[in-house]
């Protein structure tokens, strides 16, 4: 697409979220916009959007769901015609829902994601991480993103949904088709979406013929709201979302934090010596390496902080930018496991706060702990060869590291 090629004239009026330099490292651009006279930038590129960069503005937009609706939550405009056809009405509840329906769309899935409920995935996640490490620990080198991080969340979600783990490769390519390559390729985005929906249509048919015990899809199909069984289209939408929201996001967080740890022996040592820091270290890493940017559609013309926003305009909520605002966080670019004030919004804010956040934290902690136990010392092979995905979800896609082959016991 030509749009990417034209150089950016002025970040506050012409930013390009797909610019290769921005994808690799968006933080200098966020800083420049945030400290300019115009901290809410605007661009005509990619269908046009607004991009606030201050914590306060981003959180306000997330919390004011009546003005900033979830009719469109992707950072790119919708694929023309995607809402028509057989499965055109399948959405991704609750992320694409607005009140009043959002309330029950979210309520039905919250119990499976409470801290108590997700605890049962800890041991399985640890076993999975260990088996991935077994594959490369003897080689002295590995792609921390592609050989490790990429395989963890997709298998956890497949287990949760009761769908075949052997389809991992397909699931990953469909999700990347929606959230990564498909951002600049609407045909691929639509084809990937249809692959996901067709797969879950079959899964729903299967559960209707052969209901299972303790099975999320069976339970959702039997769920009742105000006495009536929910529609299949809701269940399809939830399955679609769990795959799309649960895979790329968490994989990116695991990859970014391993990239960080590869370059910071002092942080590896700190966690080894003071394991009680783990929970807050995970929050701090989520703050600094927040992977997700979401969008909102303006409901009615408003003036927001002096910006004339029109009904239908797209507004990006860059949680990575919010989490690095020096007005909210002292020394925002520094990773500090002992930070006292950390109201980070990696998981968003307001009524759409990530429903899967307790699961995501568990996966991130277990993936890092298991790696650091087995591979306590490691470093990047070549910092300049690390590749990144960005735009909607930010994280490394290839991140080669090397380590001594006889790992010293911790």
């Amino acid at each position, binding site marked *: 697409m030509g749009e990417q090629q034209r150089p950016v004239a002025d970040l506050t009026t012409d930013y390009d979220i797909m610019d290769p330099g921005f994808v690799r490292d968006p933080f200098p651009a966020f800083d420049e916009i945030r400290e300019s006279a115009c901290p809410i930038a605007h661009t005509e590129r990619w269908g046009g959007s607004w991009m606030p960069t201050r914590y306060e503005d981003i959180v306000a937009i997330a919390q004011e769901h009546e003005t900033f609706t979830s009719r469109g939550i992707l950072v790119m405009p919708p694929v023309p015609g995607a809402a028509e056809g057989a499965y055109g009405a399948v959405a991704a509840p609750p992320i694409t829902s607005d009140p009043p329906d959002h309330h029950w769309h979210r309520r039905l899935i919250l119990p499976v994601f409470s*801290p108590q409920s997700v605890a049962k995935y800890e041991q399985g996640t640890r076993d999975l991480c260990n088996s991935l490490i077994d594959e490369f620990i003897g080689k002295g080198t590995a792609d921390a993103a592609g050989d490790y991080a990429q395989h963890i969340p997709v298998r956890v979600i497949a287990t949760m949904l009761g769908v075949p783990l052997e389809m991992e490769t397909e699931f990953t390519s469909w999700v990347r088709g929606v959230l990564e390559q498909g951002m600049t390729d609407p045909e691929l985005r639509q084809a990937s979406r249809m692959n996901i929906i067709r797969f879950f249509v079959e899964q729903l048919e299967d559960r209707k013929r052969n209901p299972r015990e303790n099975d999320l899809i069976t339970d959702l199909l039997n769920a009742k709201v105000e006495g009536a069984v929910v529609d299949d289209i809701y269940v399809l939408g939830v399955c679609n979302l769990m795959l799309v929201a649960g895979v790329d996001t968490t994989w990116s967080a695991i990859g970014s934090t391993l990239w960080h740890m590869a370059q910071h022996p002092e942080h590896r040592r700190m966690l080894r010596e003071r394991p009680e820091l783990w929970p807050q270290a995970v929050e701090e890493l989520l703050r600094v390496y927040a992977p997700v940017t979401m969008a909102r559609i303006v409901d009615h013309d408003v003036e927001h902080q002096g910006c004339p926003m029109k009904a239908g305009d797209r507004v990006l909520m860059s949680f990575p930018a919010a989490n690095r605002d020096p007005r909210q966080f002292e020394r925002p670019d520094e990773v500090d496991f002992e930070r006292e004030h950390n109201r980070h919004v990696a998981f968003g804010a307001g009524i759409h*706060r990530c429903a899967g956040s307790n699961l995501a934290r568990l996966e991130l902690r277990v993936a890092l702990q298991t790696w650091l136990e087995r591979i306590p010392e490691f470093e990047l092979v070549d910092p300049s060869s690390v590749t990144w995905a960005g735009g909607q979800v930010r994280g490394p896609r290839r991140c080669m590291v090397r380590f001594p082959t006889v790992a010293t016991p911790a």
Partner: protein
Amino acid sequence: MGSLRSVRVTVDSGSCHGHQMCAIAAPEVFGSDDLGYATVLIDGDVPADLEKKVRRSEANCPERAIRIVD
């Protein structure tokens, strides 16, 4: 600031959206209901030795849903 005092803590259920950062900072004081929203585990005053942790919870809640009453 001087010596530790006991404080009371409440969660405004209207603005809590279940980030669970309170329970991460002070698991002795905050828990989660079946849906993941915060509950206060302590009846009455929070023991003085937990005050620091409770303050940290307040400083980590993105929705500013925690109230500390001295």
